[in-house]
């Protein structure tokens, strides 16, 4: 693994080169500009949108939906995953259901959600919860199952109640798996918020992107895409920072075992 603090020169070079290539190509082919405006125009548009505050409203709406959906999904899936991982018989009752629903592309649930919940905020949040729950749930179940039985027996011999075992032993014991699930869930939540907004929204970045495309404002459309990308990157970074702090013991342990 690369040292996280080291600046990745080659990576940025490739990234920069593509942007330059884009700029030059687009400027050289005016017919293309309607669909693929030069990068400089896109950033100009983004700057305008940010300055005027037009896009801030969409961004904050999307962010709020994302946070609500993702955090709700995380709470539900971790709690449910711990219970299902610990009580195996319960899991066998639900296993087929989980295995059937999990691989289904979650966007397919959007029409159902629209049918039941209408086209408001609650529908977008609901599909986000639904979609981002799966990786967290499945990883949590897996993590709980991988906990050493000696660890649980130790807790039992110290007289811990079942509730305390779940909270103090199972949860931290499965945390490395849970975190993996949460990281996957994060990207999925963002995908679902954006997609749902494109389908039914009247606000939010997903709506904005599609709306600008329909108005043939391709520079604005790309600006929206850039903003979604930046949002995804920032959320991932934030997640990794928090994870690095919370799971420091685990990272150092893995590093030591690998050494």
């Amino acid at each position, binding site marked *: 693994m690369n040292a996280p603090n080291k600046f990745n020169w080659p990576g940025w070079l490739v990234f920069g080169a593509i942007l330059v290539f884009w700029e030059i190509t687009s400027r050289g082919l005016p017919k293309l500009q309607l669909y693929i405006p030069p990068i400089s125009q896109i950033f100009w548009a983004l700057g305008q949108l940010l300055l005027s505050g037009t896009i801030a409203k969409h961004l904050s709406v999307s962010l709020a939906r994302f946070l609500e959906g993702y955090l709700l999904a995380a709470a539900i899936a971790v709690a449910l995953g711990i219970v299902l991982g610990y009580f195996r018989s319960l899991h066998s009752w639900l296993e087929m259901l989980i295995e059937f629903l999990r691989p289904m592309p979650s966007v397919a649930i959007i029409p159902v959600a629209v049918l039941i919940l209408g086209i408001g905020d609650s529908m977008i949040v609901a599909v986000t919860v639904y979609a981002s729950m799966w990786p967290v749930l499945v990883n949590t179940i897996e993590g709980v199952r991988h906990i050493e039985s000696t660890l649980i*027996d130790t807790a039992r011999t110290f*007289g811990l109640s079942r509730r305390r075992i779940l909270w103090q032993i199972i949860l931290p014991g499965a945390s490395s798996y849970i975190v993996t699930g949460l990281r996957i869930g994060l990207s999925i939540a963002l995908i679902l918020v954006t997609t749902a907004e494109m389908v039914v929204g009247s606000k939010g970045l997903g709506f904005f992107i599609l709306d600008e495309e329909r108005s043939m404002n391709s520079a604005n459309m790309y600006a929206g895409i850039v903003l979604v990308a930046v949002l995804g990157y920032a959320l991932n970074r934030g997640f990794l920072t928090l994870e690095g702090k919370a799971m420091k013991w*685990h990272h150092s342990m893995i590093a030591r075992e690998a050494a």
Partner: protein
Amino acid sequence: MPILEVQDLSKSYRQAGGETTVAIGNISCQVEAGEFVSFVGPSGCGKTTLLMSIAGLLPPTSGRVLVKGSEVAGPPADLVLLFQEYNKSLFAWRSVLGNVRFGLEARGDHSAGAAKKAGDLIELVGLKGFENHYPWELSGGMQQRVAIARALAYEPEVLLMDEPFGSLDALTRLELEDTLLRLWQELRTTILFITHDIEEAIYLSDRIWVLSRRPSRIIQELKIAFPRPRDQVTTRADTRFMKIRNDIYRQISHRGAE
């Protein structure tokens, strides 16, 4: 009244093929408060099963276990089992101090003094200066010291130990035997110890029960009268020590050949 009493304990497993394996034959024994007693037996004789049953972690097939006169159904409050696999029983997400504090928290001590008590215990097992290390940063012997400190922090009246030094190197093992004896004498805990190392059992114990191969039964009880404190050199050099060792060895290997 004995602090721990095992009455006609037996344990069988039903295997995948439907056959029943008897792990523990029919074991009865009594441990007095403050004693250091050991089960010694060949590998795979069901020692761990026996200890798990006594600790209330496995229900016996028949018979019962009494701790201070009351029957065990689930892990009793006054008793802690220490496992051989320190690397699996320590909490990797807690520091050394955190692990030892767990023993105090488990019996409801969240007081400000808990940190100091934990610190004292860490010093007692010889790990002063390692409070903020994580278990996986320590050697095997040090990890087992943490596990011992954690168990003692709980202040159990009976401490069950399942081959605690079984996976340590010979020198570390001798060191930890002495640490354990010192702590036992200082804290007056009752210890029930399991090992397949005959000499270790003799060196540590007041009494020894020799177990047969599966299904395990007690085939001999011995009182070990060597004066305390014992010494790794002089105690083991005693001719009676070797005699006891040889007796036990013959018992185990003879019965095993049957």
